[in-house]
């Protein structure tokens, strides 16, 4: 194959997924753009945004990849059966790791900002926001990833090619939306 034909094929195959995740990213941006009040009220929240969004992508991208490989290998069946120990283990690990890493990121951000005299919001506020956002977005992403991978597989699609676009699109959308809700909830409680 010549350079030109490789490039044309790669371009054609890459564009739809990129366009879909761009729309998800713009939606996430609009949520962030509308969060200026919350960002002002919780100092240090903006510092957490890239880490929280990336954690959603990393954790649930890995869950999707694991489910896709498991289907290919015949380790799991493409239907939701919570008695299945493999499915429980994969989902439990994703939720647990997602929340743990979010709390860790909140703590590191608070520590660095405190040491840099940047006067962040109290540690408990940042950790509470990270925990609530991690649980809510994790639940929504689990439902999205499991549904799309299983339904796609049953309809004869390759789940490997579904996981990337689904996780990047819904990860940004759910990640930002639930970060906003978690922030409002925690500000309301404290």
């Amino acid at each position, binding site marked *: *194959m*010549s*350079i030109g*034909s*490789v*490039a*044309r*094929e*790669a*371009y054609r195959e*890459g*564009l739809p*997924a*990129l366009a879909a*995740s*761009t729309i998800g*990213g*713009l939606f*996430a*941006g*609009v949520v962030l*753009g*509308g969060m*200026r009040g919350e960002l*002002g009220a919780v100092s240090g929240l*903006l*510092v*957490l*945004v*890239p*880490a929280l*969004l*990336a*954690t959603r992508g*990393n*954790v649930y*991208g890995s869950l999707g*990849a*694991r489910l896709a*490989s*498991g289907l290919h290998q015949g*380790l799991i069946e493409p239907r939701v059966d919570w008695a299945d*120990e*493999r499915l429980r*283990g*994969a989902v439990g*690990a994703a939720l*647990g*790791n997602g929340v*743990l*890493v979010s709390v*860790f*990121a909140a703590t*590191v*951000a608070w520590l660095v*900002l405190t040491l840099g005299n940047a006067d962040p919001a109290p540690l408990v506020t940042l950790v509470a926001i990270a925990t609530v956002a991690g649980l809510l977005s994790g639940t929504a992403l689990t439902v999205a990833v499991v549904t799309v991978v299983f339904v796609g597989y049953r309809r004869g699609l390759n789940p490997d090619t579904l996981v*990337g676009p689904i996780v*990047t699109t819904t990860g*940004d959308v759910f990640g*930002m939306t639930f970060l906003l809700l978690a922030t409002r909830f925690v500000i309301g409680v404290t």
Partner: protein
Amino acid sequence: MPTEWRVRDISRAMLPVLLVLSVVEIGSGLVLGEYEERLLTSPSLLVLVPVTIGTAGNLGSVLAARLSTAFHLGLLEFSPTDDRLAGNALATAALSVTVFPLVGVGAWGATEATVGARLPPTTVVAVSTLSGAILGVLAIAVTITTAYAAYRLGADPDDLVLPVVTNACDVLGVLVLIGTVLLLT
């Protein structure tokens, strides 16, 4: 990949990487925090943040997945004269110059429709287009370097390349976006 999926085994394999990556991402968050006031005064720039870092990461991850598959199938050699390598890199550059101007238009339009944009559309599109062109080149460089390193180390490119590339492109996305904002506004 082990066939028993226990929470403890999965976590033991993944947590170290996740924790390291989250520290790297906090680094890019600190850069955002440094320019928080600038971003808060122009909401269209704030709207650009998630979409720019996400699109940069996606450009890299699409290229990484394609190179990884081609490599597994024995279709790819890491040589500057390899047509498949060059063609995929060219497609990534073309994708970035197609998508990023539209990202700028979308970000300005979405801001204007919701909270009201304070910057003119031409500025937002210029910031997005220039960031995108730079990020396209960086995504290609990071992906090919990481894929080549994985190949030399004998690692499975699927395990290592994707998370490294996506997170590296996230961080570069923030740095390039902020740099471009400082240059053009």
